């Protein structure tokens, strides 16, 4: 208990120097069966950061995400959320404070959009009028007019609309941390781009910390404040988008090569990534 208070205080001290550390991962390892899927992962995320975990399929990026909200039990190391060890949190309470968005939304098909979005506030026993107000506010914010969408069922939505609802649901109880697992991967390119831009806007508005998993290097350059490149369960490189463009490691080059092989769009995206970083600095 005492150790606990101390670590919270040290987090608070940290706070004065720079924005607070929301997520801290130390020497994390994870094993599925006999195979090590994550080894010696070290990562820190400060308030308002979007850390993109980039890597090929099977590199462990989704597992890393699931270690954070305890859907997967790590083999070793520690994860602190807002200064507190994740193993000290009650997993139910911990998950209600972490927004989670997955590729195909994972919306409850038997509930309306409003019921889906209001889930975590309801679980936390918000008064009904407050839940309703919050749902309206969030639907507006993700660009789905409540009058038109609140009473629809997920099967009556397009892929892009489902992901918007998924994001609104993840934001509902105003969690300090968001986990996104390839949220836009299944969308058509135009909708994907729209949602990426909207996500960037949204994030600037709410100041959330986000851990964002993708295998799409354009998406990483577009959205990340920092890119974490994973290979075979280890962090190969951690860089800002502009640094990443200059990176020399073989895996980074392999990802960047996929940028140049495309037509006009990738170059645009790369520029966008740079200009956005320019603004941030």
């Amino acid at each position: 208990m005492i150790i606990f208070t101390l670590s919270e205080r040290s987090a608070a001290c940290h706070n004065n120097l720079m924005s607070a550390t929301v997520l801290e991962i130390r020497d994390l390892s994870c094993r599925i069966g006999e195979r090590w899927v994550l080894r010696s992962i070290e990562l820190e995320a400060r308030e308002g950061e979007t850390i993109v975990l980039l890597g090929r399929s099977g590199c462990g990026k989704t597992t890393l995400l699931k270690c954070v909200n305890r859907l997967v039990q790590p083999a070793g190391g520690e994860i602190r959320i807002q200064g507190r060890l994740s193993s000290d949190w009650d997993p139910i309470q911990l998950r209600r404070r972490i927004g989670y968005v997955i590729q195909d939304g994972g919306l409850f098909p038997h509930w309306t959009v409003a019921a889906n979005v209001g889930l975590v506030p309801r679980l936390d026993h918000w008064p009904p009028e407050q839940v309703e107000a919050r749902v309206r506010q969030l639907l507006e914010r993700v660009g789905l007019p409540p009058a038109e969408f609140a009473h629809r069922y997920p099967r009556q939505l397009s892929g892009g609309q489902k992901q918007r609802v998924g994001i609104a649901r993840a934001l509902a109880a105003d969690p300090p941390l968001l986990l996104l697992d390839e949220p836009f991967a299944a969308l058509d390119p135009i909708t994907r781009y729209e949602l990426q831009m909207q996500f960037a806007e949204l994030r600037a508005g709410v100041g959330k910390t986000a851990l964002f998993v993708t295998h799409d290097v354009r998406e990483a350059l577009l959205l990340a404040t920092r890119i974490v490149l994973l290979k075979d369960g280890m962090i190969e490189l951690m860089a800002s988008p502009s640094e990443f463009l200059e990176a020399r490691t073989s895996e980074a080059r392999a990802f960047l090569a996929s940028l140049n092989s495309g037509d006009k769009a990738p170059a645009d995206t790369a520029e966008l990534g740079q200009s956005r970083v320019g603004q941030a600095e």
Partner: protein
Amino acid sequence: MNARLAEILSLTLEHLWLVLIAIGVAALVAIPGAVALTRRAGLRSAMLGLASVLQTIPSLALFGFLLPLPFIGGIGRHTAIIALCLYALLPILRNTLVGILGVDPAVRESAVAMGMTPSQILWQVELPLAVPAILAGLRIATVATIGTATVAAAIGAGGLGVFIFRGIATVDTATVLAGAVPAAVLALAADGGLEWIEKRLSPA
């Protein structure tokens, strides 16, 4: 003629009563049982196997086996209800299992990730999504039980089987039909009615 009609009506009600009690008890055992089995993969195949074996026993033989048993056996309605229950277990058990295990893993994962407790997941997500499958199981069990229940007259349980056995004994086709036709109508009505409810209650 009127006396005949009155007898048909009262035996039909008796028949319906047998079936309702049997299905009700079977559902009360099989649905919670299936929920428990979704949490215990090891027991699952053993219990499904047992229910399948029960199903393969010919109904007349099962009534015969139950007759000499103390407490649960003997001539009369309760023995028949126990046998009908045993037959109804499998379709309800299996369909409930299929319904719950068939919930989209992405939906279950996001329920966990949103911070729902296991009982909230069961009551708010898994069971509502399994409703169509559970109702389909109840429908199969009900229709089958309406048929099997005619055999229960052999051990003095009453119901429409009384006409059928009487008709066979006296080689009187009209009496056999007086039992068989209402039983068939009951089965069709139950099938249609439960199908309608199934459609009404389907969540998505």
